[in-house]
């Protein structure tokens, strides 16, 4: 089982308390009425499905209930960083280098 750190509760908890909600840092178009169908499809459905280091949205659903972001190596399931929602996307390459990838 994965151990996940919640940046709001500031504790490490078992994976069963959390729900993964897919890729992080996908911004909704500011003015949906101005976007083309293709742009909307891109926003709504298209995901990178990264093999390697990726930022994901997680929710501590059976704890504080808050959303936060985590950087995870999708190959090894190793978490590299946890940070609160709204904080900028970290430099994934730097994190990967730090982790020795």
């Amino acid at each position, binding site marked *: *089982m994965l151990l996940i750190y919640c940046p709001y509760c*500031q504790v490490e*908890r*078992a994976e069963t308390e959390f729900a993964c909600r897919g890729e992080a840092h996908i911004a909704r178009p500011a003015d949906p009425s101005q976007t083309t169908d293709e742009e909307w499809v891109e926003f709504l459905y298209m995901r990178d499905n990264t093999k390697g280091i990726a930022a994901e949205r997680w929710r501590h659903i*059976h704890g*504080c*209930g*808050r959303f936060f972001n985590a950087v995870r190596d999708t190959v090894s399931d190793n978490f590299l960083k946890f940070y609160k929602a709204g904080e900028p996307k970290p430099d994934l390459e730097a994190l990967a280098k730090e982790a020795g990838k």
Partner: protein
Amino acid sequence: MSELLASDLITPDAGETPLLSLPSISILKAAPLTRLSLRCREAAQKDAGAAFGAELPLSPLSNSTAAKRAALWMGPDEWTLLAPEDDLRTVFDGIEEKLSAQPHALVDISDRSEAVIVSGDKAVWLLNTGIFIDFSLELFPVGTVTRTLFHKAPVMIWRTGPDTFVVEAWVSFMEYVAGLLVQSAGELEAA
């Protein structure tokens, strides 16, 4: 039980027979309480605490208690407020009045959940039959409160003493939670 946290608030329900009573562990149904869910922003926290009678705790997983009042941290902008059953109206109206000018959500959730008091030498062992949390006193000191999962049911755990825990679950899940606790404790009886 006077040395326990909030012992004037969390009391065994006198009318109920104990769910389990062994030398090393007891499970008692807790008497009904006023439970309020409060969500508000930073600006309203001081006023809400003043109106309620106990400060809102700001550090994660912590609690603050006063005479017949307890405020439990649920999230960075969410608290559960506990008071005696009869104080529902006064507490609710008091907070609403004080926060009338500030955005907030105050909801009466008294009847949503029930609580059992699990106490005894084996309390930690028993909770760990269904919860993946290290309950050692260094990592989970007295007063710590958290929501988590007990087997498959969401519960709230509040440590009110070194060997005493309040386990709160939604009314419809309580039979499952209490039932599994009693069943798991059967192992102690056999030994």
